[in-house]
């Protein structure tokens, strides 16, 4: 009846996961009871869960990313503390548990922290920057989000029911084959990633269509904000790379479930084909993460330097060059495979070439800052911290791209230090900069700057303490994923790394405090003008938070920095430039529970596939088809916002802006 599922699946004999799971379940239950008791459920259902508004979906993505950051970071703390305690000793984490922790850490941080964070920012900001009302396929957008959330839920269920993979964040065969990983851990991985991966692919398709087909009048490609360009590049890479992930995981699934021989040791299977396929997705993936971050930095640097971005066109060319090159370098992840000197040289050189467009970007940001009156807000601090940190990560990357060096450093902590250097220094710093930058636009009030800066310094110092020592021990020969070791010269460095991790913990605590303090004091922190940073692109021309329809009238774009140019004209005249437009009713897509229902069915189907509960699998798939038909059968897909309502909202926005203009000295 319940397949492989029985009470044995709950780890009663392992206190750590059991206690952690119990705490999480209790917290979730408490949260649900509190929400229900306060009567928030109808509100949440109406305004958030069924929402197809790109802004709401973007915020929910970021929220998911924040929660998963905590989960993944706890894993990181456990690994760092284990390596402190496991010198000439067993530490406190048994090997099979330690292996699950490093696998879960990588999986969660990449798929359920970094991805949702950048997709959340893109979702929120891109349509606003393009001056339009929503993405191309709003309901599909909601489905994408909920599928990602479904994958995250499955990974976290594995904490309490069963186990997680012990194979690392990418399940390399033959270890991940049924022979060597007979438990459900790898199955949890496969179905969680498959489900969320489909969500991501749909997001990529949605964003490419949006950017190429839905822009405000006059928003030609040349005038698109850099963040939209990087979103386009990242989405194109999603469309090109994620299908390979789907296919690869499907092959491994077939191996495990029905005895196929894609990657097995027997019957002609080829494990190295998995390496090729998974990295043909995996390397583009890191550019999917970092390109949007580059976009955030471009917006932040230009805004807080009060200047147009230096070298706009070279930035666009560099972005697209990275977009294409990202698909041509995957083999550098396994130089040691033995493909031969020629193949290794080609991929080594291709990898080094990526440093060129990236260098162009760095110089563009630096030259934007040159001679500018830089405002050192916390978003700008993250950007400067990024530039310094990312250069170090990039240089060690070029070093690793040399096959000769890679043979020595492959799978060492040097490599771990390198990719944390670029992912934290690039993606995470970028996500935080974007979070602070667009928070007032999303929520209507500004985050506390003092706590934000303190959090930045903790993160920056903690990062260097946590990862620079790993370069050293990596050069000394320490391999990654060691549950214990007995080399005395490594011990002090690992001690420093653990201290660094705890300083990052302080940074995270400060960020939570920042959010808490800012929400408590939101009445004083209101962003009344909708333009708290003296911004340059269109998202700052509407209210904070924007109305459901974003813009009462689609803006006419006449320059590279449409909002900045119109603002300068208004400042020169001391009054608003455009006369009040004629307001017309606006049609907006109707909310839909399709995304939530699909995700629910995905969780049910995924869970029953993991535990071999076949009747429930069939039920879940039938449910999915019924949902599809029910969605197709709907007669009303749009609601109309009356002209009077549009006028009321827009007049308030215009009045606030006129007021702000009067208070400002005429230039």
């Amino acid at each position, binding site marked *: 009846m319940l397949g492989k599922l029985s009470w044995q699946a709950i780890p009663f004999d392992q206190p750590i996961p059991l206690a952690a799971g119990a705490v999480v379940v209790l917290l979730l239950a408490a949260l649900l009871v509190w929400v229900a008791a306060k009567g928030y459920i109808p509100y949440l259902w109406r305004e958030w869960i069924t929402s197809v508004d790109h802004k709401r979906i973007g915020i929910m993505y970021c929220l998911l990313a924040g929660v998963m950051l905590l989960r993944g970071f706890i894993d990181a703390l456990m690994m760092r503390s284990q390596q402190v305690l496991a010198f000439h000793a067993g530490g406190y984490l048994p090997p099979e548990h330690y292996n699950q922790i490093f696998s879960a850490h990588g999986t969660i941080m990449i798929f359920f922290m970094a991805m949702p964070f950048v997709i959340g920012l893109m979702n929120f900001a891109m349509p606003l920057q393009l001056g339009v009302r929503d993405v191309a396929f709003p309901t599909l957008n909601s489905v994408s989000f909920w599928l990602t959330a479904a994958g995250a839920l499955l990974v976290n269920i594995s904490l309490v029911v069963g186990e997680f993979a012990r194979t690392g964040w990418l399940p390399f065969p033959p270890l991940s084959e049924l022979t060597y990983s007979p438990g459900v851990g790898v199955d949890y991985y496969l179905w969680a990633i498959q489900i969320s991966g489909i969500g991501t692919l749909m997001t990529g398709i949605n964003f490419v269509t949006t950017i*190429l087909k*839905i822009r405000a*009048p*006059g928003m030609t490609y040349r005038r698109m904000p850099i963040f939209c360009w990087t979103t386009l590049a990242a989405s194109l890479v999603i*469309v090109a790379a994620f299908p390979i992930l789907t296919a690869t995981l*499907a092959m491994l699934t077939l191996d495990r479930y029905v005895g196929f021989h894609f990657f097995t040791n027997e*019957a002609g299977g080829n494990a190295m084909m998995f390496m090729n396929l998974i990295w043909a997705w995996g390397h583009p993936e890191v550019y999917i993460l970092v390109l949007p971050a580059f976009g955030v930095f471009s917006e932040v640097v230009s805004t807080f330097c009060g200047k147009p971005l230096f070298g706009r066109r070279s930035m666009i060319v560099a972005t697209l060059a990275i977009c294409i090159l990202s698909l041509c370098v995957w083999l550098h992840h396994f130089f040691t495979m033995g493909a031969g000197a020629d193949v290794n040289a080609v991929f080594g050189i291709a990898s080094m070439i990526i440093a060129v467009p990236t260098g162009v970007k760095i110089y563009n940001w630096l030259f934007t800052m040159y001679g500018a009156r830089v405002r050192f807000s916390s978003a700008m601090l993250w950007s400067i911290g990024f530039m310094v940190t990312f250069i170090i990560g990039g240089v060690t990357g070029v070093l690793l791209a040399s096959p000769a060096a890679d043979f020595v450093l492959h799978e060492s902590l040097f490599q771990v230090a390198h990719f944390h250097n670029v992912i934290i220094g690039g993606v995470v710093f970028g996500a935080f900069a974007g979070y602070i930058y667009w928070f007032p636009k999303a929520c209507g009030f500004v985050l506390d700057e003092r706590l934000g800066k303190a959090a930045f310094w903790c993160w920056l110092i903690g990062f260097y303490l946590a990862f620079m020592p790993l370069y050293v021990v990596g050069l000394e020969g320490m391999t990654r994923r060691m549950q214990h070791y007995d080399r005395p010269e490594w011990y002090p460095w690992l001690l420093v790394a653990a201290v660094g991790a705890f300083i990052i913990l302080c940074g995270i605590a400060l960020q939570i405090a920042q959010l808490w303090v800012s929400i408590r004091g939101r009445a004083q922190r209101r962003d009344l003008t909708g333009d708290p940073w003296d911004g340059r692109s269109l998202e700052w021309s509407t209210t904070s938070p924007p109305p459901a329809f974003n813009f009462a009238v689609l803006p006419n774009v006449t320059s590279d920095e449409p909002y900045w140019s119109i603002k300068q004209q208004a400042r020169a005249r001391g009054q608003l430039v455009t006369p009040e437009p004629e307001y017309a009713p606006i049609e907006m897509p109707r909310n839909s529970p399709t995304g939530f229902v699909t995700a629910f069915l995905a969780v049910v189907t995924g869970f029953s596939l993991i535990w071999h509960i076949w009747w429930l699998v069939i039920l879940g798939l039938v449910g999915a088809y019924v949902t599809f038909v029910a969605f*197709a*059968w709907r007669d009303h897909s749009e609601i109309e916002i009356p002209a009077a309502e549009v006028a009321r909202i827009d007049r308030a926005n215009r009045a606030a802006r006129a007021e702000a203009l009067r208070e400002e000295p005429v230039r």
Partner: protein
Amino acid sequence: MSAPAMRLAHDPAFGPAGIAPGRITGRGAGGPAPKRIIVGYGFWIFLLSDVIMFSAFFAAYAVLFKNTAGGPSAHELFDLRNTAAETAFLLASTFTCGMASLAVGHRSQKWTQVALLVTGLLGLAFIVLEIREFTGFVARGAGPSRSAFLSSFFTLVGCHGIHVSAALLWLGTMMAQFYAKGFRQDVRHRFLCFSLFWHALDIVWVAIFNLVYLVGSLPPELLP
């Protein structure tokens, strides 16, 4: 305002608002593209991603083609007469799917339903032939677990078969929608996507026909 932007704003070619009036191209000058373009374009991007997924399966098949592990090879298994029949059914169904598009254009409920029904029956015939081929292989001890070659063969061709089966479900839903909702705009948009999907599956089949069946039927000494 930066100098180039200033120049553009005063450039009569761009007009005061930067738009050439009356031209809605979706390429930026005239604002958002019409719904039909958006839906079709998005679906094209999806098809591209689907083709990339197939290319991964093609690549796996190419890598594992010779890894027969002592089991039967492609040359020993493939029956080109069966493949020819499958191909004929699928190509004919593409023709009738095109006829359905014409009928939708003429708003003819009767001919739309007829053409879609024939398309569906031809697709079903294709699936039946494929299932017969697969069960025949399994009966001869050449199931997907026999060797890496057969794993990749069953996965690549089976993935196409699953696509056709899903498309058949979709086709049934399309027929029901035309019947119940008439030629409403959103239903027509969906039909546009469906026909794109159906034709794309045909293109994938052409690749399978050539790279899997024709190449596989060559005597081993002719293969590189």
